[in-house]
């Protein structure tokens, strides 16, 4: 395995609130390899965004706290870095694409100037004409037509898809080696989503920036990602490469997520959601956090009392799951079907 670009170990992020401590991220570890697209999926509140925001120092402290964890990026621990040093990383080495392009652009600045700002922030000595030429190149790169005209326009003159393209252009302005896309298409309608994803994919291919794609859309994961991390209640419950996760899921939550997608191949009358609500992160269920909603657990004692460790699974190299009874899932792709004993299992 190549040297990871970003290596997160035992990251814990908590928020102190009036009701108690929210354990938003609870001891997660993962690596991001150079040039890969890593998907992080999970429900709202599973800690997907917080885990990445925290390594960039973007969670407000207080109420946020990072009591433990290491985030090695190019040989330096981001979590131990001085504020100023971390700031020079943000937007240069590590860049973010935000969820809502409607609100992530400053309404009083021209698009071109906002893009240029990104370069100027980190390279104040670059001449204005150079910056402008670079910005226009970037705009071309993400498929914004008439960049010379668009350069002088304001965000309110851009459509949603165009704004998200501008956001993507902004994020790659300084050729980052790590790109974090936090639900980049959630705020867009489906046809525009496809275009923006395509832009993201091409930009990624061109810049070879490792990308962390945070999403709750499994379709996007299947389309774009090389590897997937599934998070639930602040923990990683399963990770592996994208084929493994989709073909040999070994965690009931992952299976539940896939069951809840409408399928084109079956004549379904109802959606099949995972029953119940995501757990409160203040009072997490004892044992496996997923057990109250799990179809596999059936109230077994281990599920209720023992926190399942993340352990290697059979799906392929790098595949791991945090389920006591992962073996029972071999050959099973849905809660609703019986295990296929002949195929499936490897």
């Amino acid at each position, binding site marked *: 395995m190549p040297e990871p670009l970003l290596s997160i170990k035992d990251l814990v992020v908590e928020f102190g609130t009036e009701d108690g401590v929210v354990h938003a991220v609870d001891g997660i570890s993962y690596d991001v390899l150079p040039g890969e697209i890593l998907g992080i999926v999970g429900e709202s509140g599973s800690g997907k965004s917080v885990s990445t925001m925290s390594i960039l120092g973007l969670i407000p402290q207080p109420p946020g706290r990072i009591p433990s964890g290491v985030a090695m990026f190019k040989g330096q621990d981001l979590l131990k870095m001085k504020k100023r040093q971390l700031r020079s990383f943000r937007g240069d080495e590590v860049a973010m694409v935000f969820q809502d392009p409607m609100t992530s652009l400053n309404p009083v600045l021209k698009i071109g100037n906002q893009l240029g700002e990104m370069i100027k*922030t980190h390279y104040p000595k670059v001449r204005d004409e150079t910056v402008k030429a670079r910005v226009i190149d970037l705009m071309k790169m993400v498929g914004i037509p008439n960049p010379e005209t668009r350069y002088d326009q304001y965000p309110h*003159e851009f459509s949603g898809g165009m704004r998200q393209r501008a956001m993507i252009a902004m994020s790659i302005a300084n050729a980052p080696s790590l790109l974090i896309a936090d639900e980049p298409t959630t705020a867009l309608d489906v046809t525009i989503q496809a275009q923006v994803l395509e832009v993201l994919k091409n930009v990624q291919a061109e810049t070879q920036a490792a990308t962390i794609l945070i999403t709750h859309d499994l379709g996007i994961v299947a389309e774009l990602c090389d590897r997937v991390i599934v998070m639930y209640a602040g923990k990683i419950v399963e990770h592996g490469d994208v084929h493994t996760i989709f073909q040999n899921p070994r965690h009931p939550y992952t299976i539940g997520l896939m069951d809840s997608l409408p399928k084109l191949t079956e004549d379904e009358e109802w959606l099949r959601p995972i029953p119940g609500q995501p757990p409160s992160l203040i009072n997490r269920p004892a044992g496996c956090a997923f057990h109250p909603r799990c179809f596999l657990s059936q109230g077994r004692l281990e599920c209720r009392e023992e926190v399942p460790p993340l352990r290697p699974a059979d799906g392929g190299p790098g595949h791991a799951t945090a389920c006591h009874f992962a073996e029972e899932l071999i050959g099973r792709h849905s809660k609703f079907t019986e295990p296929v004993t002949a195929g499936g299992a490897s």
Partner: protein
Amino acid sequence: MTEIEPSAKPIQLNENVAPVEQPIQPGMMPAPYGIDATVAAGLEIRSRSQWDYARRRFFRHRLAMVGLIGLVIVFGAGIFANFVAPYSFSEIDLNNILAPPTTHAHHFFGTDSIGRDYFSRVIWGIRTSMEVGIIVALASSVVGLIVGTISGYYGGWIDNLLMRITDLVLTLPALAILLTAAALLGAGNQWRTTFILAAFFWTGIARIVRGIFLSLREKEYVEAAKASGAGDLRIMFRHMIPNTMGPIIVNGTLAVGVAIVTEAALSFLGFGIKPPTPSLGVLVSEAQTNPQQWWLTIFPGLTIVLIVLFVNFVGDGLRDALDPQQRRVRA
């Protein structure tokens, strides 16, 4: 800067995308529509900023235009006092003492009790009052902006400290303090009066700016700026302060009027600017000794009223024009 070779060519479409009925063109743009169609047709596009829209709204605001023209005339007279006024403000014409308004010897507004041309004194008075008003408005806006910015951006104890100081200044009975301060520092100097007024006027702006900053701080583009490595100063100056300019301009404008009235009140009470320097308040104050000579009160008094009225018209017009919520153009 680490250069990545920017590709001038539009991004090529990958074949593996979900099947779409019509093949998407290279560059993945749908057929040009809207603005792009206009550009494609070779037509020129003029990009309109919020300021352009505001300017258009402002210039269509009838009352604001009345106010603006009025202010240009009155303040113009003050600025060019040395050309407009037929006499200097202290020149004495012993042949005409307490003369009523007449065109004789250009005493359009008459003369005062020692024969000084009252028209000239009002014009010079406008200049003094105008200077006080504008400088107070500018200085208090700048101070208020700084205090409000720091308070709203950083929050926490520093916000608490600054806001308690602001509250303190606000709770002080302004007139009493102004009188005391004027008495302690000595009345008479125009700049001293300006300073005292400015020391009271910044609180309003500070509170407004803080309020706006508190809401702006939560905006995603501020977070995005943070995520792109911008420092506090850059975020404040590039991203946040421009978004507060509307209310600040409106308030600053209105402050000019209030400052002029307050200066007049102070001078009227004898604690502001001291004769012989004429300010509008000084003139009204002096007129008390000759209550029969109506012109001595009416002309400076009316001028104060007009200035404040015009300033408020312009302020209201700006408020309507700069409020982005309001798209309606007043007829």
